[in-house]
């Protein structure tokens, strides 16, 4: 079966196990889901533009808040990061593919079905409305009797499975498949942040898995883990959620930090300042990320000792983060700066992320936090780190690696226009939220009266969000324009430093015709320039007949296995026949597993 599958056309995409294609599919899906999340945000801002507005009803607003947060985190930032992991990891470490190519396809399909499941709630008009952290006991059967919460619980469960499979894959790939000479401390910094992100996923996802299973049991099988009436505790959910949820924050930001650390050196024509400090900072951020979860719960009455401990750990995490910010600035210092679109996005990352970091450190103090808790100040804070930080860096990465992926540049003019629309729109949207928060405007309210003194800034915020939306439209236009008419990019189009630039653009299916060998950090750069700066003649990777290279064969089984698992989950939504559907899904998944194992590849 496997050998006969085609290499072009629709079927080839459904059966592909090529990490580059899977990366492209991850990226494309992420941007489609961004459209959903963006429209949800715009609807909310339209409602809040003026006091006592009636565009949306309260219930709809709750659903939009929930779906906006869940979509942006699980269906946009994480999969877009996964797109970079997929496309880049093997290229950056000089490997032919990932360690488990079919598992890679499996994780993509599970992710896609999870995203569709979550958004299917709109079709049946049972949209999750428990907020992105879905606090018990609001989300128990008594207060949320419809299937809305089930869509969230099961959707996130499925998405978590996809991330776990991918995380195991990338962990093994990075440790086992580096090319000759690439010791751990000669890996590009993006590979390091990828590795640490995978470790965070591997250790934090099981905790949310358990919490979600408990909530599924509470809702479907009548247990009372989060129900005080049965001896359970609502705070258990909060603890479990944030033991996952705080590392999740670093899962979102670490890949972005890696991208910035690759882009800045290229456009400064200088090596990354303090590479090893960057590595150790990333490690300590990852480690401390597991010790700060309760700072999301300062106002739950955990007591002064617990608060003090988590407060100290939270302040501590600012140290490695601060070290990184100084390193990025020092990378720029004295460099020959080229302000291309990716560079603009990544430089803005430093400033915006610092803003968000500063308000974050403010929250680490419990007395201050109890003033900020659940106000717009917190909304401002996490958008500065996740949007001004992670998303800006991810866009920088898209512009930076687009020529590598598709062989054409994105249009610089439109790119810069989008950047400035984003910068202005973003700051108009989120900076005034600091004021609103300090004036006491709570988050997640669907309207407010005119006498609160919030009118002006809310209008500014809404205006800002429309400017950002314009930027988004420019990006979409740029995407289609560039794919069709974009300027052709040479292999090493930015004068890059890492191995992927030694490959043709787009890279051939087999990646490296000649196994690369690495002697130092920034291996490709040192092939192009001697230590005194004189230009050498680098040897680009030759292009050979793909038939001469051993490649993993395409396979249908990942898709079928993912379908089976999805059918199993879908069965849980039906009250009478549901069991049969679920069992059918399990049988399908099992058959697919056997097909997979016995497949001649």
């Amino acid at each position, binding site marked *: 079966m496997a050998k006969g599958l085609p290499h072009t056309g629709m079927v080839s995409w459904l059966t592909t196990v090529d990490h580059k294609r899977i990366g492209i599919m991850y990226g494309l899906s992420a941007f489609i889901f961004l459209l959903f999340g963006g429209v949800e945000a715009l609807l909310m801002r339209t409602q809040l533009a003026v006091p006592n507005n009636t565009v949306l009803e309260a219930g709809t607003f709750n659903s939009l808040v929930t779906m906006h947060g869940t979509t942006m985190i699980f269906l946009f930032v994480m999969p877009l990061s996964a797109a970079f992991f997929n496309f880049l990891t093997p290229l950056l470490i000089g490997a032919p593919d990932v360690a488990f190519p079919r598992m890679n396809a499996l994780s993509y399909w599970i992710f896609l079905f999870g995203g569709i499941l979550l958004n299917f709630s709109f079709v049946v008009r049972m949209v999750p409305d428990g907020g992105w952290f879905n606090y018990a006991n609001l989300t128990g059967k008594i207060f949320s009797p419809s299937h809305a919460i089930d869509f969230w619980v099961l959707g996130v469960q499925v998405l978590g499975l996809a991330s776990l499979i991918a995380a195991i894959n990338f962990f093994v790939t990075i440790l086992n498949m580096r090319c000759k000479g690439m010791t751990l401390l000669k890996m590009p910094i993006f590979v390091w942040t990828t590795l640490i992100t995978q470790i965070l996923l591997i250790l934090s996802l*099981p905790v949310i898995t358990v919490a979600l299973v*408990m909530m599924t049991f509470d809702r479907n099988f009548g247990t009372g883990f989060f129900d005080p009436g049965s001896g359970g505790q609502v705070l258990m959910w909060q603890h479990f959620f944030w033991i996952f949820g705080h590392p999740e924050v670093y899962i979102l930001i670490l890949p972005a930090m890696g991208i910035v650390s690759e882009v800045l050196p290229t456009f400064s024509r200088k090596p990354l300042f303090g590479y090893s400090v960057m590595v150790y900072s990333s490690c300590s951020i990852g480690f401390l990320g597991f010790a700060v979860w309760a700072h999301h719960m300062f106002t739950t009455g955990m007591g002064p000792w617990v608060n003090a401990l988590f407060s100290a750990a939270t302040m501590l995490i600012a140290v490695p983060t601060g070290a990184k910010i100084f390193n990025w600035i020092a990378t720029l210092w004295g460099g020959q700066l080229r302000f291309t679109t990716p560079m603009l996005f990544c430089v803005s990352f430093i400033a915006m992320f610092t803003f968000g970091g500063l308000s974050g450190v403010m929250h680490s103090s419990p007395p201050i936090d109890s003033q900020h808790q659940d106000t717009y100040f917190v909304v401002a804070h996490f958008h500065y780190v996740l949007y001004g930080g992670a998303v800006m860096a991810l866009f920088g990465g898209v512009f930076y690696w687009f020529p590598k992926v598709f062989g054409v540049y994105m249009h610089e003019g439109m790119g810069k226009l989008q950047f400035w629309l984003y910068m202005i729109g973003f700051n108009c949207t989120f900076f005034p939220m600091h004021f609103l928060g300090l004036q006491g405007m709570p988050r997640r309210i669907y309207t407010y009266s005119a006498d609160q003194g919030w009118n002006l800034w809310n209008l500014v915020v809404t205006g800002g969000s429309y400017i950002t939306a314009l930027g988004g439209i420019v990006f979409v236009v740029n995407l289609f324009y560039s794919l069709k008419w974009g300027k052709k990019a040479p292999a090493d189009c930015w004068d890059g430093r890492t191995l992927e630039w030694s490959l043709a653009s787009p890279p051939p299916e087999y990646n490296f015709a000649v196994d690369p060998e690495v002697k130092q950090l920034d291996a490709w750069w040192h092939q192009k320039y001697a230590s005194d700066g004189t230009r050498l003649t680098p040897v680009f990777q030759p292009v050979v007949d793909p038939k001469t290279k051993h490649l993993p064969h395409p396979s249908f089984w990942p898709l079928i296995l993912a379908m089976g698992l999805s059918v199993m989950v879908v069965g849980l939504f039906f009250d009478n026949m549901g069991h049969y559907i679920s069992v059918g899904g399990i049988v399908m998944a099992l058959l697919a597993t056997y097909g997979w194992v016995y497949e001649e590849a």
Partner: protein
Amino acid sequence: MSAEAHGAHHTVTGIDNRKLGMWVLIGSECFLFGALILNYLINRDRGLSGPKATDIFNIDVTTLSTFDLLMSSVAMVLALHACQNRDVQRFRFWTAMVVLGGIIFLGFQYFEFTHFVHSGLGLTTNIFGSSFYLLTGCHGTHVFFGVLWMTSILVTSFIRGKEWFPSVQVEVAGLYWHFVDVVWIVIFTVVYLFVYL
């Protein structure tokens, strides 16, 4: 199999990809069972009604099933040994013993669960029961998948014939099986023995 083709390649760490992958999964599973065990410990004495742990546990039966599971790990070691030594009869025999040990353990668990339900502790009776069934049920599911896995290896051995010695697959399955055993030792201690503290 592509995984095999890759595994046969030299790896940087010298550990086969599939083995390293299993180790990573085990690391993740530690947190899964860690969360479940913590949840059990927190909720053990919070049941508002119905039987408590001391009322219904039968330590003799559980000790016997623990012994059985530990012995299946010994069988697992011998199965791998026979596989590496290309001794097809012993390989099949010990693989079958692992399967048998797993099935006996699951039988014990079925007996235990029905006995508990008859004694008045259902999944929803109280939070002690919910936490207990969630933890041991999750472990039982892991044993079930282990049994399925080892059965598949046994059946495949008969399909592929006497020259099929999948040492790496058996070793990976063994890692999984031993881990599930180790988790049971923790569960046995924390759930069944701590009651007598």
